């Protein structure tokens, strides 16, 4: 099977046609095209069916999409019945979504962002941003390469391969790290901004922070952080306009 590197590059745009009907489906079909090219010469009918299947509904975390892509591509070459491949795709959506979201969006990203904010505040400046980009992209690209390789190697047994891999263990470990890093960064950021405003200004900002945190938890999704911020700014401008 050729076209692995092209498929890997195309996976970077797997969400390029994100929509509410097929979600990542078309992006997966786009990434699958180089992998399925050899099938065209071997079995053109099967190739046509494989292309149709590759662009059907699919959703998961984009960084782990290579697992599903590789597994289904191999299954197509192994002549696994189409309905079985469709069932594999459906079955992979939830675990790859949950694992990937926990690993990246709720784990690695907040951990690195927390460390970067702390580094900026402690004087690293723009260099901290460069390190953040380099570190994150090294990890996610390495994960992407591993995911596609593992999917291609495992085929229909990809579920077992995921279970035995480093991913579930990493998910369990990254959560506490992310919590510590964000927890470390927030008070440092507060100090960075509020130091020059004296006790009155700093106390006022911290009171707003406490009120915002309490109100957002009390009202839930109806009062998001952004809405609370805009409401508070609007009220400030209104009262200042009234001369208060």
């Amino acid at each position, binding site marked *: 099977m050729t076209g692995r590197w092209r498929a890997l590059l195309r996976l970077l745009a797997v969400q390029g*046609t994100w929509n509410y009907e097929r979600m990542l489906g078309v992006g997966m079909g786009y990434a699958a095209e180089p992998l399925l090219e050899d099938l065209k010469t071997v079995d053109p009918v099967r190739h046509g069916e494989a292309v149709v299947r590759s662009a059907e509904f699919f959703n998961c975390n984009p960084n782990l999409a290579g697992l599903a892509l590789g597994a289904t591509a191999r299954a197509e070459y192994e002549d696994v019945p189409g309905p079985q491949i469709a069932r594999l795709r459906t079955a992979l959506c939830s675990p790859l979504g949950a694992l990937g979201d926990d690993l990246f969006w709720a784990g690695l990203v907040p951990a690195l962002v927390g460390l970067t904010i702390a580094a900026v505040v402690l004087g690293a400046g723009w260099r901290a941003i460069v390190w953040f980009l380099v570190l994150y992209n090294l990890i996610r690209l390495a994960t992407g390469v591993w995911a596609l390789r593992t999917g291609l190697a495992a085929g229909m047994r990809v579920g077992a391969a995921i279970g035995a891999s480093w991913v579930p263990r990493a998910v369990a470990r990254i959560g506490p790290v992310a919590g510590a890093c964000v927890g470390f960064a927030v008070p440092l950021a507060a100090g960075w901004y509020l130091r020059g405003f004296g006790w009155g200004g700093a106390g006022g900002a911290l009171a707003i922070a406490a009120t915002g945190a309490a109100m957002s938890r009390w009202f839930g999704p109806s009062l998001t952080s952004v809405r609370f911020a805009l409401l508070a700014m609007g009220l400030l401008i209104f009262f200042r306009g009234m001369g208060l």
Partner: protein
Amino acid sequence: MTALGALTIGLLVLWGTVVALDLVSVPQAMLSRPLVAGTVAGWIVGDVEAGLRVGVVLELFALDVLPIGAVRYPDYGPATVVGVALSAGAPWELGLGLSVGAGLILASLGGWTLMVVRRWNARAIQRRAAALAAGESGAIRRLQYAGLARDGARGAVLTALGLLAAWALARWLTLDRGTAVGLTLVAVGTGLAAAANGAVRSAGRGARLKWLVAGALAGTLLAVLR
């Protein structure tokens, strides 16, 4: 807001387009994080300090977002670019609040435009349903490139309109010093609330919560000692 030349405006719109694409479509390299978008925008306008200051506050808001599945979330990339352009050249204590406020409005608008693009993508797929059912690889490719182009156009228009609004704000809105400082304090306070909310919600009640508290204690100690 400092006066921006045509080249600077062009670079800002280009950077806004790149970060808008990065959020969902390609390459998701975290260029769209406010920290990154803000620092580069600050470099473009010649005020990296403004980029970092605006970027960190909007990053605190972004920490409250978990971009999973079909959830609707603000697009902080172009918003940060515009916020930095608005803040550049002014002392951050005076410019930060208004910039963050404008950035939050634009981020919300950006979140709405993402939904519009997703609906347009779905319509384009419906129009090519027959070609997809026939297994035409060319149809998949065309859909993909059109989807990327739609998202890129969204980012460019959002950034350009944001810069226009920022220019109008800077020209016609005059804030007294007290109001400007007050807005900055509100921006920082609400940003801290957003980050705290996001952190507590993600932490749940397990080991992560304990580590969050430990990190917060260490951060507070260091902030006090500095």
